[in-house]
């Protein structure tokens, strides 16, 4: 009950946060000294050419209008639905849609981020727990020391070393790209729907039956949750009926015209599994291994320290001693009591570290020629392509905001105290 209200409130809170974020990006890119167009051409263009460029990009409009266009472009749902990506303007270099380029680069970054996060948290939390349990022993000092060293290693240096060892010398693993250029990228799951039978009436009938079923399920759920039967419930069930009816009708019409359903995540390891192609899975996994290990190991240092400190603090709390005094098993005390509580601040920090991970991802992607958002931004910097840079920065911002939203909801889920 409390959790739901918390989630709704937290989601509402992201709106001002996002607005703030977008404004700040706008301020940095437009208000900071330095004219993007002049910087882009690096004095190699005539004033007329530059003026024309400004006109194409809308930079000749007043600042307020630019700001308005920029925000509207981002929240334009219609544009998003028809194009499949938001309106982030046109690239100064290629005159292509920045949104499209970014959306095609993003899954690569997401995949890298997810895998390295998993590696970092598994290594970090495991070693952190061990270290705190063996406080002030040789093991503790070793773990702590290696964690500190990891923190001091530039991520691209580790990447280069990995490339040198596993790629150049040993030839075990690929040192770049998401999948070998000779292999077709995995396509994901494709479901071929049987050609539609029956006529118009058939569809109407089918969709209304579907609507009835859904609203019946909805009523049953309300009944289980002890909601009193009244006008509100009737209204809800009617709304549900119409919604599912229209939805089903639309879907069946859509599938009739498409006749195949395509499910693809953009994450090669998952798509290849969906496709059922183990070879592609192995290939993409091998390509992913070095970059995600690089990033994961670098980040694990922070996780070790975080886990260790929080565990040490928690292990001293009364309820841990109290649990021991009740004769609970050592493992129960460590994991269900200490780690479960120490995990909450770790979770918060994980959210913040995610931002750091994305920073590291830029360097890792550059090192491994990983075609993600990070490499995109670096390439565009070389062309001084400011619309693209701005778009990529916004995308990073959205991603971070989403992650922090998820983290906060998870936090509330794990900590009963916050749901007050």
């Amino acid at each position: 009950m409390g959790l739901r209200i918390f989630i709704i409130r937290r989601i509402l809170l992201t709106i001002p946060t996002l607005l703030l974020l977008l404004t700040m990006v706008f301020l940095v890119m437009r208000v900071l000294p330095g004219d993007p167009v002049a910087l882009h051409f690096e004095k190699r263009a005539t004033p007329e050419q530059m003026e024309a460029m400004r006109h194409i990009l809308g930079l000749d409009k007043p600042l307020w209008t630019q700001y308005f266009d920029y925000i509207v472009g981002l929240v334009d749902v219609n544009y998003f639905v028809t194009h499949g990506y938001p309106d982030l303007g046109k690239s100064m270099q290629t005159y292509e849609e920045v949104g499209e380029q970014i959306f095609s680069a993003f899954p690569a970054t997401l995949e890298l981020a997810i895998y390295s996060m998993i590696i970092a948290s598994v290594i970090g939390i495991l070693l952190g727990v061990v270290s705190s349990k063996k406080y002030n022993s040789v093991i503790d000092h070793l773990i702590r020391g290696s964690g500190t060293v990891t923190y001091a290693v530039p991520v691209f240096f580790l990447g280069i070393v990995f490339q040198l060892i596993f790629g150049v010398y040993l030839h075990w693993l690929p040192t770049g790209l998401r999948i070998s250029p000779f292999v077709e990228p995995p396509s994901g799951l494709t479901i071929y729907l049987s050609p539609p039978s029956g006529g118009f009436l058939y569809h109407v009938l089918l969709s209304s039956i579907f609507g009835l079923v859904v609203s019946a399920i909805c009523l049953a759920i309300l009944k289980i949750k002890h909601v009193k039967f009244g006008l509100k419930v009737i209204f809800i069930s009617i709304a549900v009926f119409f919604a599912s009816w229209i939805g089903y009708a639309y879907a069946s019409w859509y599938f009739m015209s498409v006749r195949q359903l395509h499910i693809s995540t953009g994450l090669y390891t998952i798509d290849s599994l969906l496709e059922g192609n183990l070879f592609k899975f192995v290939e993409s996994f091998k390509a992913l291994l070095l970059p995600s290990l690089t990033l994961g190991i670098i980040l694990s240092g922070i996780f070790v320290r975080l886990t260790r400190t929080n565990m040490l603090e928690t292990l001293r709390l009364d309820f841990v001693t109290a649990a021991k005094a009740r004769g609970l098993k050592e493992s129960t005390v460590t994991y269900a009591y200490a780690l479960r509580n120490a995990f909450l601040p770790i979770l918060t920090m994980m959210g913040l570290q995610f931002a750091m991970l994305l920073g590291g991802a830029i360097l890792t992607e550059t090192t491994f020629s990983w075609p993600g958002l990070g490499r995109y931004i670096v390439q565009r910097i070389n062309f001084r392509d400011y619309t693209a840079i701005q778009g990529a920065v916004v995308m990073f911002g959205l991603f971070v905001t989403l992650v922090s939203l998820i983290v906060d909801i998870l936090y509330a889920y794990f900590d009963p105290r916050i749901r007050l």
Partner: protein
Amino acid sequence: MVKLTLLEIDSLAINYPTSSGVVRAVEDVSFSLNKGETLGLAGESGSGKSTLGLSIMRLVPYPGVIVNGHIKIDETDILRLSEQEMRLIRGRKVAYIFQDPMTSLNPVKRISAHFVELIRTHEPKTPNKEALERAKTVLKNLGILPERINDYPHQFSGGMRQRIMIGLAIALNPDLVIADEPTTALDVIVQAKILDLLENLRKIYRMALILISHDLSIILERCDRIIVMYAGHMAEYATSLELQKAPKHPYTEGLLRSIPNIELSDQKLSAIPGSPPNMLDPPKGCPFWPRCPYAMEICRVKEPSLIDVGHNHLVKCFLYYKQGVNVE
């Protein structure tokens, strides 16, 4: 009536090695406790009373180590038990109640989980449902609505949480309950309620109780026997009546004279001069001599040992040595 010894502690010593030196938190403590008896451990902060209490559970906090002595529960020396065997004593034979009820329950677990976990750890064959029922009965005895068993700790007030802690302590009907300042964090009215509850339950379940407190009034009111601790040492050990009527150790004497009594008017209080010793650098000889009005030459040089002044009244003070003691 046959008195059965439940707990026997013999020349116990506990050290905390720190980076700035060794703190001798508990030194040369010996006493025994019979079944069903109540014993009070009185002392100021840093007197080692909590360390002593925790050592009976073998839970002396890091970096403390028991360097000497025996702790016997029902004739078994618990210092020789394996961690696994010791675990089965904690909570089942000896239970512990902590000072701060706000922090001694796991904030992310429901009350029911605390109970079920405890019961099923010690009686693994108990089905979940039965454990839950037993927990509800315990709550009812504590004056808490059994429906609230599915609440989280933060939904209870301090007094209620301390009741729950007591419930967890008595749930398996242990032989000994150690209550470490169980009411210090609570207001007086709640304090009285909690202490009454503890006393009643103790009588019903026939448990022995060790009550640790800095407040001598509480201990005098509630305990049969008292140990007064000073700087890790047992200064005095006596029945509460005798301790109040005829305190032997100068520290006990001073302590009793510095406690205000609400029942008396025009009471004259006097303080013990000086302050408790720095445990990293305690005075040589008797730790109390710098504050003692009767300090003699010998007190600065030699540490007195516990002597019996009759009726199992023990005191660690040179004033009660029969003949002169040789100064080495």
